[in-house]
């Protein structure tokens, strides 16, 4: 408790940085706020690396901080990090500098200081969300992330962004309000047991009645299903990604939306294990619909940014499916999926942004033959696309096959429906690639210039991650596995043993652990 408050510092650095960036005098030029923002995000990354270096993979909640905040309600300022939190923190701190470099000129015509300031604020709040171990604290920052997100969507991007921002906000506030009811309900239940407390560690030990648990679960789940998003709560997603700048979409879809699936693991399974299992059939059905439906309507899109947004609906279906399959492969696969989806989709959004900037349209029907003059852009776009469609050797495959295995283990037809997603993904990715990148090019239209160094520099770490974690995901799995084991033990489920135990191998008999 007396140790250095690493997690607080982690969240404070970008927050202070955001304020500094916002208040840089305009007279100092447009470049300074960007440079400052980049420096701040790199320092944040360094702090996160320092945290990762101290992290003991087997050690549960670590680097904990705990201070009374509103003692009347049992609210604590309590932070901590476990495997799940650590991976999402690392994803966040890597993506923010990438977004800053990738969208270096995206706000030039408006107010760069505001854009990069809000981005840092969003980073700060997200980091708090991922490290909060008090439900109330989590809720406050869960809602707080909407402020920077709203301004990023509504202030920068394409025509129609104000409407998109409003729709985004209405959905999120609606979800938040439902969750609020559950947050209050938790307090009631906790107070009935004696001393009220919002600490996760206390709440997870609560013995609540069946119906209370189910109601509270529903409140949290709906909010997370809006955030993640799941069918039928997804319609804000494509509108938002279509209008926002690609950088904003990265922050939204690759970081912010992860709060939804993060919350399902940490809060739904952590606090309401019985209700989670009770709700599984419904959740699994919604997840399956999201997978297939998201992919199908992605195929029909003409706007690249909408298309990429909708692929995420399909992917969040996979993540949710893995979580609610209740097996170690599913849960670890989901955590891995969050990271890999973050990396791959960020690359896709940024590359789509580069492409749109060059061609002046985001419509697939208006772009053709890019590969001829911009092979690097086309090549990277293909790699990111292949990652999205789950090609083995790129990281998303590992998470996808883990989730599919767990889904099949849950029930064979669930795995069978989910696996159709791999064909649909091939269609939406490769058809988009075929229409935009291949072909002879249009006579009279100027050649598309290839990527410059800054643009490649922003994408390079992402592509490196896709390949590295495709072939060697063990560093991530080593972090997620212990957390998953503890969580599943808490829920009270264990992996099913194989139908045919291996002869002469007694690990199968012990396979229950």
């Amino acid at each position, binding site marked *: 408790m007396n140790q250095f408050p690493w997690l607080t510092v982690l969240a404070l650095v970008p927050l202070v940085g955001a304020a500094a960036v916002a208040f840089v005098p305009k007279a100092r030029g447009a470049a300074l706020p960007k440079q400052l923002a980049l420096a701040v995000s790199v320092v944040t990354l360094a702090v996160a690396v320092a945290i990762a270096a101290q992290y003991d993979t087997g050690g549960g909640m670590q680097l904990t901080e705990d201070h009374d905040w509103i003692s009347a309600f049992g609210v604590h300022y309590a932070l901590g990090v476990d495997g799940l939190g650590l991976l999402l923190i690392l994803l966040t701190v890597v993506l923010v500098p990438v977004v800053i470099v990738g969208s270096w000129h995206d706000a030039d015509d408006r107010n760069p200081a505001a854009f990069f300031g809000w981005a840092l604020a969003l980073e700060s709040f997200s980091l708090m969300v991922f490290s909060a171990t008090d439900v109330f604290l989590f809720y406050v920052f869960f809602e707080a992330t909407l402020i920077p997100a709203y301004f990023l969507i509504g202030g920068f991007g394409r025509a129609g962004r*104000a409407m998109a921002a409003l729709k985004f906000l209405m959905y999120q506030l609606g979800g938040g309000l439902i969750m609020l009811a559950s947050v209050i309900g938790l307090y009631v239940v906790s107070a009935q047991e004696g001393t009220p407390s919002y600490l996760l560690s206390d709440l997870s030990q609560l013995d609540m009645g069946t119906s209370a648990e189910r109601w509270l679960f529903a409140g949290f789940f709906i909010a997370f299903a809006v955030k993640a998003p799941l069918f039928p709560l997804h*319609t804000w997603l494509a509108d938002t990604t279509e209008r926002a700048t690609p950088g904003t979409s990265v922050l939204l879809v690759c970081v912010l939306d992860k709060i939804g699936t993060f919350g399902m693991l940490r809060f739904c399974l952590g606090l309401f294990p019985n209700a989670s299992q009770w709700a599984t059939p419904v959740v699994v059905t919604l997840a399956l619909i999201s997978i297939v439906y998201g992919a199908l309507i992605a195929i029909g899109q003409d706007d690249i940014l909408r298309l990429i947004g909708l692929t995420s609906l399909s992917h969040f279906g996979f993540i949710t499916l893995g979580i609610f399959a209740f097996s170690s492969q599913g849960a670890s*696969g989901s955590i891995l999926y969050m990271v890999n989806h973050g990396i791959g989709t960020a690359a896709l959004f940024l590359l789509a942004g580069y492409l749109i900037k060059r061609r002046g349209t985001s419509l697939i029907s208006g772009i053709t033959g890019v590969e001829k003059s911009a092979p690097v852009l086309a090549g990277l776009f293909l790699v990111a696309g292949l990652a999205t469609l789950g090609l083995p050797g790129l990281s998303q495959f590992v998470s996808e096959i883990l989730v599919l295995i767990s889904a099949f283990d849950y029930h064979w037809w669930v*795995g069978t429906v989910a696996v159709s997603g791999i064909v649909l993904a091939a269609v939406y990715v490769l058809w988009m690639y075929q229409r935009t990148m291949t072909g002879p090019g249009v006579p009279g239209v100027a050649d598309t210039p290839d990527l410059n160094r800054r643009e490649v520099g922003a994408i390079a770490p992402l592509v490196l991650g896709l390949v590295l974690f495709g072939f060697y995901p063990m560093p991530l799995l080593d972090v997620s596995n212990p957390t998953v084991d503890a969580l599943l033990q808490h829920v009270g489920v264990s992996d099913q043993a194989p139908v045919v135990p*291996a002869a002469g191998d007694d690990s199968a008999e012990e*396979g229950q652990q």
Partner: protein
Amino acid sequence: MTAHMLALQEAAHSIPVVDPTSASGVFSLLWLVIALPLAGAAVLLLGGRATDRWGHLLGTALPIGSFVLSLVMFLQLLGRDSADRQVSQHVYQWMQVGHLDVGMDLLYDPLSALFLLLITGVGSLIHVYSIGYMEHDPRRRRFFGYLNLFVAAMLMLVMSENYLGLFLGWEGVGLASYLLIGFWQHKPSAAAAAKKAFVINRVGDIGMSLAIMLFFVTFGSTSFTVISANADGASEATLTVLGLLLLLGACGKSAQVPLQAWLLDAMEGPTPVSALIHAATMVTAGVYLIVRSNFIFDLAPNAQTAVVVVAVVTLLWGAIIGCAKDDIKKVLAGSTMSQIGYMMLGAGLGVAGYAFAIFHLLTHGFFKANMFLGAGSVMHGMDDDVDMRHYGLLHKAMPVTFLTFTMGYLAIIGFPGFSGFWSKDKIIETALADNWLVGLCALLGAGVTGFYMTRLMLLTFFTDKRWEKGVHPHESPKIMTIPLIVLAALSVLGGVMLLNDWIVDFLAPVVGTPVHEDPPLPALAITAIAVAVVAVGVALAWFLVGKRDVPRTAPQDVSFVTRAARNDLYGDAINDGLVVDPGRHLVGGLLAVDRYGVDGALTGGPVAIGAVAGQLRRVQNGFVRSYALSLLGGVLLVVLALLAVNLA
């Protein structure tokens, strides 16, 4: 029922188990066989224009390096006792979650040893050939990068010790195939063909993926070692489903009916690609998969029957298409489908046929690569024209190409003594012993093969000159003809593998020892009949094509059968009608549902949003404080609510 069970149990005892020893000596370099071409791909694809000058040389040297390694290992393996010919190498841990534990594990046994030689040997020859063939292409370096990537992935496919690693290679070759079919991306037809190949293969991948899931759920592992040791513990229903799922995967990769439609379009790729990927190696991966999974299929007779049915349909399907095409590459592609049908047939016949399936796979790899490269050489001399109606009398202008092609031709039609004669004959013989109807279909296929290959030979090298104006056919440079000569020699001599039943004995530790079954007729009689049937096909082609004038454009007043065959037996129309068009309507319908149904119901439609927006716009004005205020309001609401609850 009981007799059936007994038969299965008996089968279970005779199925060899994958039980490799840890790699040592030269075998500890197994990983390097894959790493060499992989490194080549990385250097060539990432190195950029700096590697343009020497990229193709490096790209050729590395597969040759892998070939030398494969050869040394093969000789080492031969030196070992036949019971001791399985070696494995654990490279590193790929993934581990719960009791799912997958290593990057390699397996080297007689089956993979033969594949290694085929892939790196024929692969290297095709690399050499491509130096000449792609000389004037500005993106030659990238071509070699993709080829190296292909070789690495194909090696991974045949060397993995578990299904997940096999799937890695499986998808890797699919990617390389996609990139190479669409290599000339500025051609819309090439780009479309590439996507089509990948998407149809993905349908097959559903089978592969589900099989992997079912393997894990059933055996707790995807490793050949574990599964082969425990397969007899699984129910026959499970094994049958596994077999059918693997067959679905095999149909995609090996272009077997009903997933055959991509292969003909795949001829859009440069011809060396057609030779390496779409003839000699990748498309035979399905056969490898089934032979490798012998421990599943031997216990699932119904799945084996399905393999045989698919094989017979495809071997006729491909042959019929081959008869009607005027594009030299498409004739060869139809022929490839058909020949893979023969291999599948061998694999579907079980222990009796596995070794012959692999034998035919190897000889086909030689003669078909030979003929594709020969076709490339012809195209090289004919300004990339592929229409055989514009060829004719080329045997004088291209003597080396003609002679080497003839060796391939004699091999594929099964001219006595040539490699294809031995391998196809064995499959027909085994099929007849198993089921006379299947055997007759295989015989018929051999006759049709004789017809379409003779037609191709006549149209290209004989009959009269029908060249386009300004075309001056010429022999290709040495760098292209030398690989042709080597492959031609292999096409002639490939049959030596059958001497003393060598290949059967060599593969026995992997696929088991066949129990000799007497065919309904003496083997010699069957051979005589097969040769006679082929002779009829050849003669028919001679009278229908060789003795008549060949019009320069394809006649349109042809029979229904010819028209169907020209249209790939309506494979595309079937796919469009059953999948593509309904899919398009489904997507269109869902888009409307999403916009007006889901979105409309939840947001009250755009109208309501607009109204709310109008109201809010007055409030908002873009100031932070109003949002800060509303957040504060929210927090206050929470506190109040908590107080209320607390006081209640």
